[in-house]
């Protein structure tokens, strides 16, 4: 599973970098308006996209440490053998859903590309901005594939969450 660890590390480095950029940009906005007295509409748009990109980009890491909230009461009633089967089913649902959503979002990217729609102030192509969402869904799918492998290969006795 080295590949996944490697991907995880890259994702977190990039995620933290984008997020830090967003944070600095935010400070710049306050400074620019209050001290320099200049208009910062482009920065205001940029920070919005930066933070959504961060969210989409790193969401799959939460699969790896099981921090996406879910309703766990039912699972705790089951034996650990049954739990493992349910975890496999959940991972499969995760793969299906995220892949489906990735597919759906390509329509959005495609539409923006075809009509060459641009963002409001930065005037960036919207298809690039939206493709981070597609990318996030790809990563989430990968995350659930890793989770599936983890539960399939795990010994039944150690598979409890």
């Amino acid at each position, binding site marked *: 599973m080295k590949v996944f660890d490697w991907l995880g590390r890259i994702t977190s480095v990039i995620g933290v970098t984008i997020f830090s950029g967003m944070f600095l940009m935010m400070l710049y906005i306050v400074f620019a*308006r209050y001290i320099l007295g200049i*208009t910062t*509409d482009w920065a205001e748009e940029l920070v919005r996209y930066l933070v959504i990109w961060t969210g989409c980009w790193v969401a799959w890491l939460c699969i790896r440490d099981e921090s996406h909230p879910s309703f766990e009461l039912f699972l705790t009633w089951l034996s650990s053998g049954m739990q493992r089967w349910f975890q496999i089913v959940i991972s499969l649902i995760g793969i299906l859903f995220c892949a489906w959503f990735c597919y759906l979002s390509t*329509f959005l990217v495609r*539409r923006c590309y075809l009509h060459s729609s*641009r963002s*409001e*102030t930065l005037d960036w192509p919207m298809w690039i901005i939206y493709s981070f969402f597609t990318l996030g869904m790809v990563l989430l799918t990968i995350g659930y594939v890793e989770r599936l492998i983890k539960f399939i290969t795990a010994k039944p006795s150690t598979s409890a969450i």
Partner: protein
Amino acid sequence: LLILSFLMSVFEPQRKPALASPTTEKKIVLKAIHAYPVTHARQWVFETMNKMIGDATNGRVKIRIFGAGSLFSAREEIGALIDGSADISLTPTPYLIKYPATKPLNILMTIGSMPTLEALCEVEDLIMKEGWDEKWLNPLGIKSLGLLPYTNGGIVASSSPIRTLDDIRGKRLRWPVPGFTRDYWGALGCILVTVSAAEMVSAVQTGVIDGIITSLEAGVTTKSYQVAPYVMRIRGLATDAPVAFSMKTWKKLPKDVQVAFEGIMPKLIKMSRDRLREETKHFDETLHKESKEYMMWPEEIEKEAFRLWRPLWKKHAQLLKVPDEVFNKIMEINKKYK
């Protein structure tokens, strides 16, 4: 979630006929979207349209209104129409700028509306007569049924008096719409800040900004005069919106329904304009009564504004790829109302 899904199942049977798709059932339900409060003229336009089209088609066509951004925000409306997620919108032209094909339509936002609401109406008539709106919107997959004015002009509401050019310079003002139209007030020396409509009034109250540039309507409905009591009526911001139909939906409509829609438009446009004139009078009176100071912008500011803005109009018209022919004709109308 259990409770909710139960509710869903209870409500489902009643909804079924109303929600069937336009092509298969006799009854046609169209989704109309706008992102303004339900007190806004836009809601009225859709309600009126619903009534008129219902009468014209013997109740066969119904319009379901999703107001207050309950389905899409203003900047997403056009995208939703292209895809067919929604059927009709009255998207303000500044939000069209995201799509290059529609850019020339913003000419109205830039120069068409400058003198008065009446000038705007005349420009709209010209554009509709020449079919320019169709020409600019069709490549996007959007059918234009005509243009409607959607605000009754703008105001600058400030926490301190604005009477001279010097009062304006360096003021931090909230600018309402995206796009380069902010250059106009930037040219006068204001610092323009993007603040969401929800935070607009509290931002003035706390002093994050000194005032707001907004529509007459928003100035009245948000009661911004309570925190920004010095109100100056300005030329401009009397902008318009195409009555935009998703081409996907339009093509599926039976021929007679299409004709019915086209048939009600002249009357709807006239009614909206009359209503807007009435509303403008009413809003003017309200602001007169409620604000500490309410005036038309002084001549000093007007002169300087037009001096600075004229070259910008030309520049922006080129940026927007507005054909020279269109630009010149609109400038003629503009001059007439000066």
